[in-house]
């Protein structure tokens, strides 16, 4: 097995699938000669040609919307949003069209689209580039939302998402593109959607997270261990489908839970996780489920983003609080 960082894993996933299935088309801004502003598609245009790796005009709604029509023609388009924050320009095409065309057409129009979108903080980007909008898309029925936290999962779930006949929003953590490195099999493999991953074992409290927040949770759990707290870390990996069973088991086993995400607190997906846990495992809960998230303010200027994005310290404090909570 080779150690790859996340962007390399994604690139190799795209390359493998494009080689396997010539119906796959990549559409996005600067993904061709430039190889994507983060190099996620570096070399792909050279290898697969300008007709399959297409630099699109600067218009998110039609990057996504034309993919809907392409899918209808029998192709498998993978549109890229240069940043998830600019998915808002295509929100009507994603929630109103991509997510519903299969239902609207009674299954006649296939919609195997995968929308790739980097997001997430602490990489000193300008305004609007770091926003974590996953909860807004998780509420778009008909769509699936995938948020890998390791290079291995990034490739395995990307392949799974491409092969899944349902449309998938595939969110990639900017911070992890280079910082997250792990072993990625050379052989062909996929990782099913809707199965959470236990990133670290523990039985005092389960810390639920996804995408780059998993790394923060793991660090906090490691520090908690030094204080004698056994924190399990559960990587959801996909929000839709949601692995309610593993959530139940983990919450039942630990009796205490904390959810961590980069998005703002109110109406973030952490709320769904809390609601689901207490529905599934209420009688095993020994303390209120905690949430560590960004405050309910827009993503701030880079100079203060570290005070905004949930830090190891804040997560550790959350762990202590949940573990210490008593009537």
């Amino acid at each position, binding site marked *: 097995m080779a150690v790859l960082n996340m962007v390399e894993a994604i690139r190799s996933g795209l390359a493998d699938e494009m080689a396997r299935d010539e119906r796959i088309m990549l559409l996005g801004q600067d993904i061709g000669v430039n190889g994507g502003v983060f190099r996620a598609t570096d070399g792909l245009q050279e290898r697969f040609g300008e007709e399959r790796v297409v630099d699109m005009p600067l218009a998110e*709604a039609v990057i996504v*919307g034309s993919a809907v029509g392409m899918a209808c*023609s029998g192709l498998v388009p993978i549109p890229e949003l240069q940043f998830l924050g600019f998915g808002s320009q295509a929100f009507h095409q994603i929630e109103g069209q991509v997510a519903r065309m299969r239902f609207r057409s009674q299954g006649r129009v296939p919609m195997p689209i995968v929308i790739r979108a980097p997001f997430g903080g602490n990489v000193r980007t300008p305004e609007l580039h770091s926003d974590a909008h996953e909860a807004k898309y998780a509420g778009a029925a008909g769509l699936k939302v995938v948020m890998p936290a390791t290079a291995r999962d990034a490739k395995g779930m990307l392949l799974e998402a491409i092969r899944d006949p349902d449309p998938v929003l595939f969110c990639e953590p900017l911070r992890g593109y280079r910082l997250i490195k792990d072993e990625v099999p050379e052989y062909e493999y996929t990782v099913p959607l809707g199965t959470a991953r236990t990133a670290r074992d523990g039985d005092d409290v389960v810390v639920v997270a996804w995408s780059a927040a998993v790394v923060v949770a793991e660090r906090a759990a490691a520090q908690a261990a030094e204080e004698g707290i056994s924190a399990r870390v559960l990587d959801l990996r996909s929000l839709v489908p949601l692995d309610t069973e593993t959530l139940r088991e983990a919450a039942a086993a630990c009796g205490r839970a904390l959810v961590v995400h980069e998005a703002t607190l109110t109406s973030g997906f952490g709320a769904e996780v809390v609601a689901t846990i207490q529905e599934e495992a209420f009688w095993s809960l020994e303390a209120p489920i905690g949430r560590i998230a960004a405050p309910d303010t827009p993503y701030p200027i880079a100079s203060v983003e570290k005070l905004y994005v949930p830090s190891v310290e804040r997560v550790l404090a959350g762990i202590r609080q949940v573990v210490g909570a008593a009537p």
Partner: protein
Amino acid sequence: MIAGTAGGVAEPRQLLSPDGTLADGAAEVLDDEALLSAWRMMVFSRAFDERAFSLQRQGRLGTFSPVNGEEAAVIGSSWALDPGRDWVVPQYRELPAMLRQGYDLRRALRYFVGDPAGNDMGEGVRVLPYQISLAAQMPHAVGLAWGLRHQGLDGVVLVFFGEGASSEGDAHEAMNLAGVRRAPVIFLLKNNGWAISTPVSKQTAAASLAARASGVGFPGELVDGNDLFAVHDATARAVERARAGEGPTLIEARTYRMGPHNTSDDPTRYVDPAELERRREFDPVDRVRRYLTARGLVDAASEEALRAQVEAEIDAAVADVEGGPAPGVNAVFDHVYANPPRRVIEQRAAATGEG
């Protein structure tokens, strides 16, 4: 240089005048067989509009948007397609074009009476479902046309939208991409004067919406949208261009909405009756009737018979459909996902009482 009013000043191209006289040489535009089938669909469409309204008033049908007044624009254009390879991407007011492509009248009615199964266009029928989100179908049409071409197919795509929808960002993004990709797509803009109650004068300051084509790098043409021949001729040329790999065309068909926006609209609140009367002189169906009568191809008796025939067709279809089973809770869950999340499977089980 000033490109201020480029393309805005010219008059819409007309071949068949309101009094039914056809411009010299325009007869080749539509051979008699095509012409008569178009005429038949015009008569059918008028009859269906009326029936849909009466059924809706009786609570037997959902919301419906009549074609009334726009028959030449919808039929003239779609008659230029080859249903065996070309596609129609509708908004919601183009039933005749969908039927021409092979969409079954019974499916159409099934959808209108409330069964989503009717929204399945059918095997091999090259039509996308109605699009309620204005202009949202335009990016789809471009991607579809591009995708066909990418796969070496020679089909072209005819996408319908109104002058209201033309104000949406999606309309611009789609047309601009079509220009860049030289996609085989025809943008058929039906400028019927109204977006519900909003007159075109409040929709845009452009003298002609066809002029938008120059800003995205392909030809735009302004035609009399109540002229079956002019619309068909412009579309046929656009189809030829598209098939030959010469890219998209924008056609502004100037027409007029002669009825309410849809079954829940009350146009008496905002349409001047005198204006409506004036417009009736330009009725696209009367125009074809005059021409066909002069040519001796149609008379009162034959139209009577045709009318009776289409009414009977509609009767039969309505009877079939109303006889059919009413949709149940499955209509809430079927076809949402190919591989539904566990939670949706549980929700379905609970809803169907198997939970």
